[in-house]
């Protein structure tokens, strides 16, 4: 479990103006579950994830972790290094390379047969699989996904959605997903936080009471539709100008 307590992020720009990116953001990220933060573009989702992963410092507030948890952050542009092949990308940063384990992870994310391929100019889906496999190779306690479906076509989006779901079930990994998309977040998560922009602030949270094992049929279930409608209504309560770019 990770507890994010009253995180605020501020910076003073060149003209001396104080910008507030995040204001008193508090979250509970339960272990071995997928939690989502749904927020419009430019609301500080990436900043929040970077603070949780320790890549950035908060101006105020704290992130409370259980012991020495390994938190891996996957950026919205899933970064694979084009000068390394798939296998080298996945084992980057490992002190002890366990070939059997790397091979099994490669198979799990669907990259079998591509081990010696270089990811240069490959699709977002391909690069996301590499990023996810690299994260898994590091035995993470928590994986932070920053808008992973950004710029993916519909089919790839579905494949990746199922891959994340399968990963969580198989590896019992904790995920925190930051997204603009209500449907994707609902499909994957067991808990959802809604965040507004200017400044980024949590406005509501919802438990997703859907079966743990999910498939495409869930989209048509009454519960799913009700939850989506409920979340949409929560967002509509706040200034619509602060919600542009939020997709359904």
């Amino acid at each position, binding site marked *: 479990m990770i507890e994010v307590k009253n995180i605020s992020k501020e910076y003073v720009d060149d003209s001396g103006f104080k910008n507030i990116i995040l204001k008193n953001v508090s979250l509970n990220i339960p272990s071995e579950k997928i939690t989502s933060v749904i927020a419009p573009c430019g609301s500080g989702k990436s900043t929040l994830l970077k603070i949780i992963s320790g890549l950035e410092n908060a101006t105020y507030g704290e992130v409370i972790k259980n012991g020495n948890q390994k938190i891996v952050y996957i950026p919205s542009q899933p*970064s694979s290094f084009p000068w390394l092949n798939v296998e080298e990308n996945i084992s980057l940063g490992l002190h002890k390379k366990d070939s059997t384990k790397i091979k099994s992870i490669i198979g799990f994310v669907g990259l079998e047969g591509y081990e010696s391929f*270089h990811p*240069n*100019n490959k699709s977002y889906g391909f690069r996301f699989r590499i990023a996810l496999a*690299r994260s898994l190779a590091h035995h993470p306690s928590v994986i932070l996904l920053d808008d992973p479906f950004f710029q993916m076509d519909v089919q790839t989006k579905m494949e990746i959605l199922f891959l994340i779901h399968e990963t969580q079930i198989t590896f019992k990994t904790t995920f925190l997903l930051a997204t603009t998309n209500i449907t994707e977040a609902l499909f994957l998560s067991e808990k959802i936080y809604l965040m507004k922009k200017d400044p980024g602030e949590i406005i509501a949270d919802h438990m997703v009471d859907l079966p743990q094992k999910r498939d495409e049929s869930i989209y048509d279930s009454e519960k799913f539709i009700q939850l989506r409608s409920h979340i949409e209504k929560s967002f509509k309560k706040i200034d619509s100008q602060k919600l542009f770019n939020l997709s359904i």
Partner: protein
Amino acid sequence: MKEKKILLQNSAALFVTLFFVYVVLFEFILPINKVLPKPSSVYESFIHIWSDYNLLFAFTTTTSVIYVAIALSILFLYAGAKYFIKLFVEMKYSIQSFQIFRFIPIFFIAVLFNFWLPNNLLAELLFGFLAAAFLALKKLFDESMKIKEEYLLVARNLNLTQSDMYKNIYWKSSLPALVKYYEKIHLSLWTLILIYEFIDNTHGFGFISRTALDYKDFTALYTLAIILSLLIWFGNSVIRFVNNKIIYWSAE
């Protein structure tokens, strides 16, 4: 592939047409002029330059200086990449302040080298090496500052050491642009070394160009220009070929 073939065909057609126009115009219609020499005299001039201007010696010295300087600059950069990048990243603002020196013409530095160490082939090589290394380092600095934020985030998140980041992330990310830039360095170095030899006036293509100018040897100047163009084109093609073999990725 098809586009490349069409481009090659078009270039060849353009060359043949221009060559035909040149031969007809300057061999038969305007044989005496101050714009371009007669084609037949250019042909004869090749033999004349070979013997009278000692073309082989000039070729050996100039090309040795240029390509040894390039090779040394590559070795220098490769050996010190990690340390240069560390310096660039940690002291980027201090390094940027050196920009005030960018208005100093390199011509002046060539003059100074000639003043300090006249008639010295090693001084010329040192000048060539410094010019190539400086241009390559400047490009490495620019590329290190442009590195994708995602690369750094992932590398930091994977707990790569600073040393690994400089060597495996910054350096590798900068390589495609840097290697491509060597084509520009090659062209610049040809110009700089020719200027150096022109001032030095003792050896190399710069020296024979100056001698031809002093003797008002109009045809020899044109012939030299053709020889130099062919050499630069050939050198550039070799560098491009090697680059394409070494660098199989782009920085995305």
